[in-house]
């Protein structure tokens, strides 16, 4: 089975983030790491390959720097990687990113594509559904459990008020939520082995994607303006001296909540 896992390198959420003049995230100034949920996607891909046989290919669309995340994914145990790098891609919106991903997935060949359900920087959560639409294969997104039986895939889809059980046939697009597994840490052996694993670099030309379909200048959405929200005024913090509950009640009454 050919399993492609989409991995995005994102800025470290623990550090302060800023916007560029164009209102996009200033990614250049930040250390990158694997989007958290994509680690769960990698883990699920590895588990499925271990249980059913097959190969796991990491796919990342992003600048040169994203190779750090690709190496980490390979050191977790993935077999090989495809890195789409092209200056024209910078600043792409979800519509363009999903286009590039779809063409790269097709070029790689796939039975199953696994993504995180959301990236911490864009937080749009639309790429997996867009990819399923573009590839014309079943959308098995927001999965907290994936079972494969021959060519059938059954997932538990987290819904707004519980969950749905959803079934489809391969090939398919799956996105995962963090409930699904516990991502492994790369072993020393894995880290050494990753250095020799093949990483194929592709450009837009290799994928026959027109540069006019991607990038900031061609994005279907644009930032009109942005402003720092006034920081929350420092709140009042009190220590409970046997009257903590009463003091909260007084605060609530003052704000007319009770």
């Amino acid at each position: 089975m050919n399993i492609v896992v989409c991995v995005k390198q994102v800025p470290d959420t623990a550090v302060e983030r800023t916007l560029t003049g164009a209102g996009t995230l200033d990614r250049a100034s930040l250390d990158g790491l694997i989007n958290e949920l994509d680690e769960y996607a990698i883990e699920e891909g590895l588990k499925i390959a271990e249980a059913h046989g097959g190969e796991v290919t990491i796919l990342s669309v992003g600048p040169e720097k994203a190779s750090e995340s690709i190496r980490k994914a390979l050191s977790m145990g993935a077999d090989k990687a495809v890195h789409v790098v092209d200056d024209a891609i910078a600043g792409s919106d979800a519509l363009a990113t999903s286009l590039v991903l779809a063409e790269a997935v097709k070029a790689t060949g796939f039975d199953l594509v696994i993504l995180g359900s959301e990236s911490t920087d864009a937080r749009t959560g639309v790429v997996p559904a867009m990819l399923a639409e573009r590839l014309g294969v079943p959308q098995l997104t927001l999965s907290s459990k994936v079972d494969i039986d021959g060519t059938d895939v059954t997932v538990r889809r987290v819904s707004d008020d519980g969950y749905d059980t959803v079934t489809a046939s391969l090939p398919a697009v799956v996105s995962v939520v963090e409930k699904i597994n516990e991502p492994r840490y790369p072993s020393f052996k894995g880290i050494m082995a990753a250095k020799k694993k093949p990483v194929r670099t592709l450009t837009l030309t290799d994928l026959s994607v027109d540069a006019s379909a991607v990038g900031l200048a061609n994005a279907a959405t644009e930032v009109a303006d942005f402003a720092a929200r006034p920081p929350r005024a420092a709140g009042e913090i009190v220590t409970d001296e046997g009257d903590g509950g009463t003091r909260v009640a007084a605060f609530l009454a003052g704000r007319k909540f009770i």
Partner: protein
Amino acid sequence: MAEVLVLAEHAGGEVKKVTVELLTAARRLGEPSVVWAGEGAQEGRARLAEFGAAKVYVADSGEFAEFVVAPKAELLAQLVGSASPAAVLVAGTTEGKEIAGRLAVKTGSGVLTDAVDVTAGPDGAPVAEQPNFGGAITVRSRVRTGTPIIAVRPNAISAEPSEGAAEIVAVDFTASEAARLAKVTEHVTAEKGARPELTEAQIVVSGGRGTGSAEGFKVIEELADALGAAVGASRAVTDAGWYPHAFQVGQTGKTVSPQLYMAVGISGAIQHRAGMQTSKTIIAVNKDPEAPIFEIADFGVVGDLFKVVPQLVEEVSKRRQL
């Protein structure tokens, strides 16, 4: 005036609150037409009329519940083709965003998610306000290609009534083969009881690992009930199985924007804050004075939640009786 499509969220003929919020926003952009996928439109019609729906496009098909997301996106694409709307508004739920994403690909349009406000720009085209970085920065964005598709966060826009005709227009719709690939075989809903819905509630009381156990978490429910609030939980709690996942607040759970959010025994990790930082008022109870949740709290008590919360419940009940 151009039509603005609003995809209704409904269950058992009942219109969800977010839908009337979307109608309120849609009226600023043009003439709102509701898109009703599935059954129950007759029951929901009165409420849609109350919030200014001019038309209600009804596609009464079981396919919307039977197959994941794709049929709804296909219905919207069909109506975008026939009605040439000025914009399409959907609820900014996880599913709503997926519908928006597929529709964007189908129609070659820009999509904006996580909007907390939508207004008409100088040229009449929609401008969406989106909180960024957990609310620290507000970005105002526009769509410049295709039909603007905007996913609006529930509970962010306050609904205002305005009369509309809500004329029912039956739509002939059959999902294509491509939209019938992912089949729902089972639908399980978590017990929510009589409490308000988490993303719609005015007040949310959330508990974290500090509650210690499923048994300990009951103090959160008691406080929520005293305040008429919805119950939320941190991931530590849902992972431990003390409370169902459907109630998780945060980056990978629900995003909430209530008037009042109470974080009890929650440290305030960035992934939790991402789901509640735009709440109007935040109260924290935590025994650790260094807990990051205090940085964003309007009022905080450093103390043991098992002492503070029961006293608060008692105090609230006392005041209620006055």
